[in-house]
């Protein structure tokens, strides 16, 4: 485990023993996840009296299961995902406490030479996307707003790790990807130009991922939640301001990381993280927008309507200016 990172840094808040928590990243150890490692490396967590173990994640479903099963206490989970799982009755007892992406980071990427340059070009094309992914779920809503027919697009199931290869070799015309994943895809297709069609352009209400915890923790120890999220978001702030350094921190911890791509991802991340409302802090969440995000998914048929924002977000714990 990565527990050893915490050694030698006594908890400072109140002098009591630090709270031990496990944090699961959104997916793996991409540059877009660097902020947690930065918070760890810079001692923001220990300053906040939290001893954090960071574990690379495997996607929303597994993160939610780990939260529900008590194996992890915090994880950034795509809010759309949470809406669908909670709305479908599969998951309960989890709540979002801070936004990571203010706008959904979902996107579709294609090679420039495939002739795809705008959303409508996707009609009649083959898009690869992992089974059950958020991108696939949001796609109908996106198509509706972007003005083309989702039914005319051919979706194929493909594991996340295979997206780049299959785009590069022309097996598929486009892939579902997070917007920040662009450097990674560019790396995979080796120099060819990549076209990005971000969903956020049309799905303006939808958040991307949000720091999620269990309702139990949110109710029993709101202080822990506040300390943790503020340290995490402090890491985020620092990472966005110092992409190269953040990438280096990540690469030091995980030598498999491509430092250049990671730095580029972090650059891209800043845009999505920045609150749209003037003066609002990173991580802010708005009740109306969450309601809008729910509605967008309900309209797309991805979830039954009737879900309230309070079932998903603990607004009292969300960072406020």
């Amino acid at each position, binding site marked *: 485990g990565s527990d050893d990172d915490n050694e030698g840094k006594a908890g400072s808040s109140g002098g009591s023993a630090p709270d031990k928590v496990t944090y699961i990243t959104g997916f793996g150890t991409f540059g877009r996840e660097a902020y947690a490692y930065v918070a760890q490396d810079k001692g923001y967590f220990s300053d906040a009296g939290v001893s954090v173990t960071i574990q690379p994640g495997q996607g929303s479903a597994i993160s939610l299961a780990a939260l*529900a099963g008590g194996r992890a206490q915090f994880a950034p989970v795509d809010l759309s995902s949470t809406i669908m799982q909670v709305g*479908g009755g*599969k998951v309960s007892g989890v709540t979002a406490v801070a936004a990571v992406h203010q706008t959904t980071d979902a996107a579709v990427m294609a090679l420039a030479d495939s002739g795809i340059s705008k959303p409508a070009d996707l009609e009649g094309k083959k898009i690869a996307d*992992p*089974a059950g*992914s958020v991108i696939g779920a949001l796609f109908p809503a996106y198509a509706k707003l972007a003005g083309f027919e989702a039914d005319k697009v051919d979706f194929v*199931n*493909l*594991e996340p790790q295979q997206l780049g290869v299959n785009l590069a070799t022309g097996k598929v015309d486009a892939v579902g990807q997070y917007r920040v994943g662009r450097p990674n895809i560019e790396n995979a297709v080796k120099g060819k130009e990549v076209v990005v069609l971000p969903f956020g352009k049309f799905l303006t209400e939808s958040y991307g991922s949000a720091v999620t915890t269990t309702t139990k923790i949110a109710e029993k120890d709101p202080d822990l939640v506040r300390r943790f999220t503020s340290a995490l978001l402090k890491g985020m702030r620092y990472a966005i301001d110092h992409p190269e350094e953040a990438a280096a921190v990540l690469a030091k911890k995980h030598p498999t990381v491509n430092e250049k791509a990671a730095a580029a991802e972090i650059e891209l991340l800043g845009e999505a993280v920045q609150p749209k409302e003037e003066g609002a802090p990173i991580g802010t969440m708005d009740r109306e927008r969450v309601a809008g995000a729910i509605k967008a998914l309900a309209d797309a048929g991805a979830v039954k309507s009737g879900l309230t924002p309070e079932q998903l977000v603990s607004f009292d714990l969300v960072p406020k200016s």
Partner: protein
Amino acid sequence: MLRRVMEFGWPVLGLAAAIGTWALAVVVFDVPEIVLPSPADVLDAFLRVPGYLLGEAVTTLVVIVLGFALAVAAGLLIGVAIAASRIVELMFSPLLVAFNAVPKVALAPLLVVWMGFGQQPKVVMALLVCFFPVVLSVAGGLTSTPVELVELARSLRASRTQTFLRFRFPSALPQIFVGLKVAMPLSAVGAVIGEFSAGDEGLGFVVVQSGANSDTALAFAAIALLGVMSVALFYALVLAERTLLPWVRETTSQR
């Protein structure tokens, strides 16, 4: 008569015990459905889309059987080559072992890029996952013929082919069947892993799809179907063994 009945009774009892323990565990430890659904949840999930699940099961079954058949063919071929020549053994068996230690999931991208999204990469995956036990048991069986039988073959000046066909192979059959029995469920694993990684058919797809949707109960229903099919295929193999190798039961002591 009672014996016959119990041949079916005991497995049912075993199944009942397993399901009972599972149901109890879910209740006692208050496990959330997303982590471990109860048997009732799984049944519900199955009854929600029985036709769909059975259809996907058939898709997967075809892959399992094809992959297994190819694995048997490949395993026989390689096993025979290894048994026939010390040089082949020395040259290639380390490579085989190394290859077998590769988690085949890691090879999925290659397969998809080469073979696309159809049935083929799944069949190949099933083959790759399950051929090694066949190779080892074939090679092992063929190289442990009792000396007296091989001496008999030599004394008759049997050619290599004849020695193989009439002496080594029949006497290796009991061991080969153990390999086949190990390979059979592995073929199921391979088929499903293949379906995990690409394509939108089969129980494997159902498992990832429902897993990503946190519909663990549906994933379990698919897995249960997979289990049922594998058990049926496994016992078909056991039956084949009994019919084809009557002398084995009578010259060895079962219990």
